[in-house]
Structures are given as structure tokens and as C-alpha cells.
């Protein structure tokens, strides 16, 4: 008897609290899948190899772009990733061994990947680079390159900060030892010499907040903060509130929350390297090369950024961030 009453009570409570709660998923029919071809209808198989650290929203957008391109062109996409350079090289070698029609890969550690890329070109498999390796992709034998120049991106951000009168920006590195992140901060520093770097643990949001809070209260002369990832920018807003700092915040990368903060004026601007475009173009360029012999960029890298997102264009971009494409 008692258990039955308990069950009834639990059921009633559950029904009570589950009734119509706002703020959740928008419950619409998910039948609006955009057109596209059947996978493999073009007959091409493309391997897509990256140094993605699993669980990063940035990489998720690259993958989303690549997947959409594969769908649009009827290509079979084989995605694989490993943050360790030697393992990424093995993944490229795997692609060569399985005789794919083309390989798109990030070239974050050119020396470690050179052997595998050469194996691909020796096997007459076209390779395109994306995201990183802008200076080395040609030497390695890759045909085309899609990505942002991290140093240029950093410099552009720095120049905009300098124009706004920044003297002492704080550049937040959320992953120790990342060449790309260091390059961005170095770019900022080349435009604003007073730039200072700080290291935070990007895998722990509360630690990011308290570290930045500590820094902002230690040094009141910090007038602007540059974060290099969307989630870190969100944490920084909390640290700013907690420390009462009036420093201006700018960030790299974009997501729905950051876009909203830009619209609300809490973040000045975002430097977007358009990861979706990187993924989309890498696959599309291989498709066009295989199908039509096209060379996009005419022997030069194709830059997907820096694209600035600020108050002027946020209204256009905001809806796209909700689709995981910006």
C-alpha cells in the first residue's frame, strides 16, 4: 500500500513540474532537412582529417560545414581526428591506404604530417589544407588552402583596439602551448605593445573565471581583454562583473550566446575565421578539382577570416549562429 501511494505521489509531482515549462527546445517538426544529394552519388570519397580536440564548438562548426558540403555535392565523407600530431599522420596514411579520391586535412604540425601528405601526393591523391599551415601547405604538396592567417587576425584585432584607444590589453590563452593561440596574441601585441598574455585552464569554466577575476583585480590598468574562444569570452563576462572591471571585451570565434552579447553591447566585436566555410570549402574545392580540375585561390591561400562581427552586422549574423553555421 505504502509503495503504491509513493508511486502515485511521485507521478503527481512529476506531472506537476513537467507541465509546460518554457525556455526549452522549440518543439517543431524536424522535417526541414535541406535538399542535397545522396551520399556517394558523385562517386567520390573524401577523407577529412583534423587535429580536433573532441568537444570544442569551434571544430563542430568545421565538421558541420564539411558535412553540408558532402551532402550538397553527393560526396561520401570520412571524418577522423586526433589532437596528437603523430596519430593525425597515421589517420592521413589510413586515408591513403583506403584509396580515397581526395584528402582535406589541417596542417597544424607541418613537420610531423609531411611524410603522410607526401605519401598521399605520391599516390596521386589530391590534398587540400585548411585551418592551419598557411605558410607550409605548398611545400608539403597540398593544392589549396582555406583558413585564416592567425597573425593577420591578431594584428587586425590589435589595430581596432588601438584605434579605440587601448593601451594595456590582456590576451587570454586557454590552451597551454598552442601555436595558433600564441600567434593571435603576438599579432595583438604587434599592434598594441602593452599587450599582456595570461594562461587559464580552458577545461574548467569556474577556474577561468576566478583566474581572470584575480588578474583584473590585481591590475586595474587593463583596459581591454582579448579572448580566443567563445566559451572563454562568456566566462570573462562573469569575471568582469565579479571584479567590477570596466575593460572592453573582444573575442575570437562566435556562438549564439556571444552573438547575443555583441548585440547587447557587452562584447565589442568578434573576430570570426568562419570555421563552417573552412570545412565547406575544403570539401567543395576537392570536389571541383576532381570533377572539373579547378584551382581555387590561384596558387594562393584562400582566407576565410578575419571577418569582423560587431554591432553593424550582428543583426544579419545572429540567426545563423543559432543553426551552428556561424
Amino acid at each position, binding site marked *: 500500500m505504502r509503495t503504491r501511494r509513493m508511486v502515485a505521489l511521485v507521478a503527481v509531482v*512529476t506531472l506537476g*513540474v*513537467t507541465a*509546460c*515549462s*518554457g*525556455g*526549452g*527546445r522549440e*518543439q517543431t517538426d524536424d522535417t526541414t532537412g535541406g535538399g542535397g544529394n545522396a551520399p556517394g552519388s558523385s562517386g567520390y570519397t573524401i577523407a577529412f582529417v583534423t587535429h580536433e*580536440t*573532441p*568537444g*570544442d*564548438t569551434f*571544430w*563542430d562548426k568545421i565538421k558541420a560545414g564539411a558535412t553540408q558540403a558532402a551532402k550538397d555535392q553527393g560526396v561520401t565523407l570520412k571524418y577522423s581526428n586526433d589532437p596528437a600530431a603523430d596519430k593525425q599522420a597515421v589517420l592521413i596514411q589510413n586515408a591513403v591506404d583506403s584509396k580515397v579520391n581526395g584528402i582535406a586535412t589541417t596542417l597544424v604540425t607541418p613537420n610531423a604530417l609531411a611524410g603522410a601528405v607526401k605519401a598521399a601526393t605520391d599516390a596521386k591523391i589530391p590534398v587540400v589544407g585548411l585551418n592551419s599551415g598557411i605558410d607550409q601547405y605548398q611545400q608539403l604538396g597540398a593544392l589549396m588552402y582555406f583558413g585564416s592567417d592567425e597573425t593577420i587576425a591578431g594584428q587586425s584585432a590589435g589595430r581596432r583596439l588601438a584605434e579605440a584607444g587601448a593601451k594595456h590589453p590582456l590576451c587570454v*590563452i586557454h590552451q*597551454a602551448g598552442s601555436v595558433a593561440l600564441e600567434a593571435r596574441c603576438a599579432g595583438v601585441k604587434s599592434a598594441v605593445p602593452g599587450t599582456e*598574455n*595570461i*594562461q587559464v*585552464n580552458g*577545461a*574548467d*569554466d*569556474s*577556474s577561468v573565471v*576566478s*583566474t581572470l*577575476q*584575480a*588578474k583584473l*583585480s*590585481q*591590475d586595474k590598468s587593463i583596459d581591454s581583454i582579448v579572448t580566443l574562444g567563445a*566559451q572563454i569570452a*562568456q*566566462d570573462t563576462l*562573469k569575471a568582469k562583473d*565579479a571584479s567590477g572591471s570596466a575593460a572592453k571585451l573582444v573575442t575570437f570565434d562566435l*556562438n*549564439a*550566446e556571444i552573438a547575443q552579447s555583441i548585440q547587447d553591447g557587452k562584447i565589442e566585436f568578434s573576430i570570426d575565421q568562419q570555421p563552417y566555410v573552412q570545412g565547406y570549402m575544403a570539401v567543395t574545392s576537392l570536389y571541383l578539382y576532381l570533377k572539373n580540375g579547378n584551382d581555387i585561390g590561384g596558387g594562393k591561400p584562400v582566407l576565410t577570416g578575419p571577418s569582423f562581427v560587431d554591432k553593424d552586422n550582428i543583426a544579419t549574423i545572429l540567426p545563423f549562429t543559432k543553426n*551552428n553555421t556561424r
Partner: protein
Amino acid sequence: MSHSVQTAPPPVSVPSRITRSLSQRLLGRPEVGALVAAVLIFIFFLAMAPAFRSAESFFTVLYQSSTIGIVAVGVGMLMIGGEFDLSAGVITTTAGLVNSMFCWYFGVNLWVGALLSLSFCLLVGFLNGYLVMKTGIPSFLITLGTFFVLQGANLGLTKLVTGSVSSPDISQIDGFGSLNKIFASSFKIGPVTVWITVIWWALFVALAAWILQRTRIGNWFFAVGGAPDSARAVGVPVVKTKIGLFMTVSFLGWFVGMHTLYRFNTLQAGNGVGNEFLYIIAAVVGGTLLTGGFGNAIGVAVGAFIFGMTSLGIVYAGWDPNWFRAFLGVMLLLAVLVNLYIKRMSTSGRWAES
């Protein structure tokens, strides 16, 4: 040894334990070494970092320590019980993800998700303990398995449910306000912001200290960690005790996960990895033996405080960030060395007395 021979034998009528002076009794406690190290590091940063000297900074340090310290208390007790839990870092993220995605997807009150997430975490803790006890495989391996499973499931399921690898913003869902108050609110005392996790941390530490020092269950923890076979022989429920310890760690992991979720509204599915080692470090710096059977809750709390103080002290001092990890490592090594030194002194002191 020769020294003890030369001393006069103690009066026979008085048990040797009572002749130990106050200082020696203090030195015999596991947390004293950590306390001395904490005081030394505290003075060091007071001298080196002007920004460290305010009450606001102190409470920022306490906040940072509390998010590590809450789980570390459980991990410390588990280590006293002779086991490890490597899934403790990732489960904080799992806890938050289960809550947020379930409520977001089905549009239900966040309280439902929080309780669901609690049951899930307790189940994970139970499975960890059950598998360790039933298979006899070291907990290091079992929980390493759990760690990978949770890490992968965090990513896979988040992507499946939300179409992205970060959880959706839940701040508009019913129940956010009350849960936010419980897990992630703060209040002001003068200029100082006190985060509620600091209060919770103190409560959990006090509770754990009481259980360990004053209750029979506390004795069981020491017994199953120090000598499981003898413990079983005298009737200690070894299996239940260890499973309970694993579930305690999962509960505290859930608690911190709730804090992170309700403070940040969204979570990245890849987060939490690596924190399991911070919990173990806090416990070890606080005097818990890696081999089990020795340690206490206050020590673990001091260990977490040393970690929080060191990681933020470096920032307050404004040192070159590239050296951050190196400073941290040196500080932690020093803390352990001071700890060891104090423990040696206390042990040799006991020899001299008896």
C-alpha cells in the same frame, strides 16, 4: 635508536600516550604538515603579491578552492578507504549535461532534471564501487574505464540531442531561479563577495571530519583502506563501505556539476577532463596516503586551499604566464615536502618520548 636507550624510562604508572606534549600531539595529525605549508605559501604570496592582500582576493581564492575542494573531500575519503576515482572530474560535466539537456529537450522543470542527474551520478558511483568489489580489478582501471565512457558519452549524446557540442542555455527554463540560489548564488559582506560553494564546502568538510573522527562508519573507512582483510574479519561491511565511498564521490561531483551548470547556464561537453588529478593532488597534499588508511578531511580541505591559493597567487603576483605550470608544480612539491618533513619530525618525536 641509541638516543632512546639513553633516556630514562618513563614512569610505569603513566601510559606513554599522555606524556606526549601538546605540540607533539598536534604534529601527529595528518593535516598539520599541510597547514604549515599553507601558512608558508600564504605568507610568501602576501609578501610577493600586493593584490593578494585584500579580503576580496582571499574570497576569490576560497571560491577557486571550493570548486576543487568539494569533490576533493569525497576523493580524500575514498582514498582513505584505499581506492581511486578517475571519473570524478568528468562526472561533474556529465551531471550538468544530463540536467540541462534533459530539461531542454523535453521542456520540463529543471528540478526534475537535477534529481534525474543525481540518480544517474549515484548510479555511476554505485557501478564503480560494485565493479571494483565484484571483479577485484583495481579501482584505477575500473574508473579509468568509466572516465572514458563518460567522456565519450558527454560528447556523443550532447551532439545527438542539441546538434552542437555545447549544451543549450537553460536560464529561461522553470526552476532556474531556485536552483541557482542553492548551487550558484553569492552574497556580499562589505566589499567581499562570498560564493555559496564556499559555505557548502565548509559544511561538507565539517560533515566529513565528523564522520571520519567520531562515527563508526568513519572507522570503517580507515579499516577498509588500511587492512581490508582484517576489517572483513572483524565484521566491517567492506563491500557496502567502499560502494558508499564511490557514491559519495559521485554525489559531490554532481554537486559541483550543478554549481557549474547554474553559474554558467551552458556547458561545453569536453570540459572537466584533468580535474580528477587536482582532487587527488589536494588529498595527497593534505596528508592523505596514496596507499589508503590514513588522512583526514581538514587536511584535504587545506590541500585544496593550497592549490587554489597557488594557482591564483601566481596571477596576483603578475608573473609570466608561460611559467604558470612550473610554479604550480614547484609549489605543490614544496607543500608535499614540508608535509613529509613535519610528519617525520612528529614520528621521531614520538620515538624520543616513549
